């Protein structure tokens, strides 16, 4: 079964530092997403990406966040200047129209801890 791969699995960073979370979506998928889950809270949508541009973003996805598809396989989420409240599990997901009738495929997540 194809998988979405996320690296690293756990990252600890100092407040104010920049972090890049990496995702390798399923190879024939064209729709990509980032979600986050603060400990004990709901999974929240951050951003969706299609055709090399953001198609939708939430109010959480402010100027300190950015996404990029630097090559044909990776999809990254950058947080420019991390805050304590950015500590969360970050999930990448991908989807294809061929999966119509099926849900998104999520990666195992990156646990980001800001200290």
């Amino acid at each position, binding site marked *: 079964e194809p998988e979405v791969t996320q690296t690293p699995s756990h990252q600890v960073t100092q407040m104010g530092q920049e972090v890049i979370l990496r995702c390798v979506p399923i190879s024939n998928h064209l729709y990509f997403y980032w979600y986050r889950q603060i400990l004990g809270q*709901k999974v929240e*949508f951050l951003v969706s990406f299609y055709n090399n541009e953001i198609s939708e973003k939430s109010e959480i996805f402010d100027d300190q966040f950015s996404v990029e598809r630097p090559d044909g396989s990776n999809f990254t989420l950058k947080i420019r200047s991390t805050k304590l409240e950015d500590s969360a599990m970050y*999930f990448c997901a991908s*989807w294809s129209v061929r999966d119509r*009738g099926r*849900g*998104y495929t*999520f990666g195992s*997540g990156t646990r980001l801890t800001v200290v």
Partner: protein
Amino acid sequence: SQQGEEDPQALSIQEGENATMNCSYKTSINNLQWYRQNSGRGLVHLILIRSNEREKHSGRLRVTLDTSKKSSSLLITASRAADTASYFCATVGSTLGRLYFGRGTQLTVWP
């Protein structure tokens, strides 16, 4: 808000029993999805039900959808200890739209 909300927040049962989790939402949807999350792990898609469907089965899973009541239920039959996880419903307003997750039901199945 479109967000789904699960009920109960926690459910504890014995192996072999059935587990039923409910989800309510507020606005019209394109589809509703159920996901499972083992502690500290990623989300695994279980089943998707479209707004024009009323019931769907997949193995030991049975999902119902009542759009008039804006509610869905997930039934896991003959539960196993390995079913212990958090279960989330997520609603989608349009085909490619964002998922709106509920807080989840923590299911514990005792051997």
